[in-house]
């Protein structure tokens, strides 16, 4: 009597996951290796090498990499400042609360906020121009560009880094600092030989998480730039809506490429996380 009940309890979860997560993904991955007649082929994958698709992957990777690295280092600096910088306690809790909000403030509204800030009529653009005579648009800046998008993505990347890395910095035991000091280590030696090696794996792991986070995102970019910046998710979006590439299976191949990249990123993430957990028990 017992065995069926407990399997009944987990059955909805597994049925749901298989039907709406695993099978649809497998369907696309298999479709990437089939032609219209359903025969096995690698033509679709080979066809990804056309310049427009390669360019889309490349700009996606660049934006994701730039925003995750900037977000990671800025987030780490802020985390160290609020945990170890001797700032008042309320700053720490206020920063953490705000980070929780800002890391979830993404998508279309985020694009609106940055258009209102750094668009042609945005407040920052206007103030820089009237107060400092600096016309950023005349100097080649455009919110609808690589740097514009990267700067916008950083708005949710930094807080995500702060939320994840603060517990890791908290996990640095006081005794390690004391032990290092007893052994005559200088502050820089303590940071170089204790702190950085301990934080490093969770830091790298989080960078990868931020990368995957940016790589799959579409709403912010679409609302910000329309289709003027051709990142992979926007290309796939256009392909799903209207078969702009005139080959249904090429869409599958693009999706396959995206899964491959975020999947690889996450394999590294898990690997780094298991390494970091060794220290932060």
């Amino acid at each position, binding site marked *: 009597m017992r065995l069926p009940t407990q399997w009944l309890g987990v059955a909805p979860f597994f049925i749901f996951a298989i039907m709406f997560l695993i099978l649809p*993904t497998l369907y*696309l991955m298999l479709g990437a290796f089939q032609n219209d007649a359903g025969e096995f082929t690698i033509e679709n994958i080979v066809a990804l090498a056309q310049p427009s698709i390669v360019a889309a992957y490349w700009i996606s990777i660049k934006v994701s990499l730039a925003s995750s690295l900037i977000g990671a280092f800025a987030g780490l600096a802020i985390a160290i*400042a609020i945990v170890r910088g001797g700032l008042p306690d309320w700053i720490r809790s206020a920063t953490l609360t705000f980070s929780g909000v800002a890391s979830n403030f993404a998508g279309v509204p985020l694009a609106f906020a940055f258009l209102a800030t750094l668009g042609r009529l945005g407040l920052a653009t206007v103030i820089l121009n009237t107060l400092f005579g600096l016309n950023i648009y005349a100097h080649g800046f455009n919110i609808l560009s690589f740097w514009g998008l990267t700067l916008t993505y950083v708005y949710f990347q*930094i807080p995500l880094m702060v939320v994840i890395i603060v517990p890791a910095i908290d996990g640095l035991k006081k005794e390690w600092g004391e032990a290092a000091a007893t052994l005559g280590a200088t502050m820089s030696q303590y940071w170089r030989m204790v702190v950085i090696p301990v934080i490093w794996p969770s830091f790298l792991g989080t960078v990868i998480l931020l990368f995957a986070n940016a790589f799959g995102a579409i709403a912010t970019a679409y609302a910000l730039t329309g289709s003027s910046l051709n990142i992979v998710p926007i290309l796939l*979006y256009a392909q799903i809506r209207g078969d702009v590439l005139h080959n249904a299976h090429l869409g599958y191949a693009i999706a396959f490429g995206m899964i491959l990249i975020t999947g690889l990123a996450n394999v590294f993430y898990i690997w780094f996380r298991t390494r970091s957990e060794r220290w932060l028990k």
Partner: protein
Amino acid sequence: MKAGRFWAWVVFALGAAYFFIPLIATVEFSMRMRRGVYSFDAYKVVLGDERFQATFGYSVLAAVFTIILGVLIVVPAAYWIRLRLPQLRPIVEFITLLPLVIPAIVIVFGYIRMYGSNSPLPFLASDTGTNALLVIGYATLALPYMYRAVDTGLRTIDVRTLTEAAQILGAGWGTIITRVILPNVLIAVLSGAFLTFAIVIGEFTMASLLNRPAFGPYLQNIGANRAYEPAALAIIAFAITWGCMSLIQILSRFAPRSANRPN
């Protein structure tokens, strides 16, 4: 240490500037609608727009169904894994992480191809089916957060003792889950629910590709066609996100610290 504190303030000030300037700019921009003076006209226009009310209502409803579906799937699974099937834990944790690996656009692309009008399970053949598919898609997006929240909640209660006590008193499995376990992890479930709400309410990709009249596609449409209303909508969306996160923080104060006894 003095120099350290100085740099900490500098870092904090730079960060605060980066995060507050866009918010201030957006508020300022949203109030520029009437020429020459600041006004709340953009907010009035937005809130009075029928499409705003309709799409927002639609997304709230979708979020509510998503939360219900999420709870129905996650709570029993997390409960039995804690109680009887710990060997399944790594598999389930891996599955709940998948939505972070597979981009939403890929998941919904899979749905469109697999559940089209000509497929054995033609979700997309009817409006109701498509709505259901959107809720299902949202539930997958929320899966990592919902599972983590519920699992954390279960960790703080003694699942085994509660279950055995209920069984001795003659409770069946339905009663145990709905009247013993669920009330005990209610705060955790609610945290997961508010996070789900924050994620779902302005979601664009899935709603747009399934052609649903949701809030996210409406936002995008306004952004492409209006000047000041988008800024007002951004502030409204920020306020909603803020509200959800505050509720989670308030709830966490009521959560039991940890009552788990070793077996």
